[in-house]
């Protein structure tokens, strides 16, 4: 194991870099990619995973949320949403906006979703929240 690779893996173990960043650094070294959760090079991801853990909020200490949604379900849902009449779409948009999500469901198309799925297949999103929670979104 050479020094550079060792240093990158140490930073990953210490939490100084995310899995995605470590993978990019290893790739830049020309090393074999380290195995990581989700879709490292997954061409046809089957599930969208969302993990939330590590709440420091006293009302939900140490809470964990783990959601797995099949991509085919998302595809079927998008196709179904495309068939909704305009009035229904507006009502859904209004309800989403009231809950803090400014999304226009009538403009989501199947081809857009396919593009997102392709990109998500090679990406892991990690976000550290203000209450100490960590959110990970990835595909597998």
């Amino acid at each position, binding site marked *: 194991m050479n020094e550079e690779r060792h240093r990158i893996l140490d930073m990953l173990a210490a939490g100084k870099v995310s899995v995605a960043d470590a993978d990019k650094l290893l790739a830049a070294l020309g090393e074999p990619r380290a195995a990581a959760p989700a879709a490292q090079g997954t061409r046809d991801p*089957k*599930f969208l995973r969302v993990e939330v853990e590590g*709440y420091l909020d006293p*009302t*939900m*200490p*140490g*809470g*964990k*949320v*783990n*959601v*797995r*949604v*099949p991509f*085919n*379900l998302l*595809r*079927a*849902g998008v*196709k*179904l949403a495309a*068939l909704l009449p305009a009035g229904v779409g507006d009502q859904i948009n209004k309800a989403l906006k009231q809950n803090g999500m400014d999304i226009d469901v009538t403009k989501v198309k199947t081809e857009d979703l396919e593009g997102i799925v392709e990109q998500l297949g090679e990406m892991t999103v990690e976000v550290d929240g203000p209450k100490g929670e960590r959110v990970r979104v990835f595909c597998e």
Partner: protein
Amino acid sequence: MTFPPSFVRLEHGRHCFWIPIFLLWPLLLLAWLLAGLCAAVALLVFSPRGLPLILDFWGGLARVFCELRGTRVAVRAPGADFDLTVY
């Protein structure tokens, strides 16, 4: 073709339940067909142009139900502790 979900596994606290939803297939199929038939008849009477749309929509509903297989929602927190998986 994806088969509809057969079981739902529900963990709540220390309890774990396996719910055989495949037993509901005949009932769900009947309800789906009847509701689709009523909607199609209503559209034929009031808006014949909407008939292909309702057929697509009804097929889409069935597909969404079938693709639920594999969905999992797990929450471990003091206020809520459950793990629901659809097989």
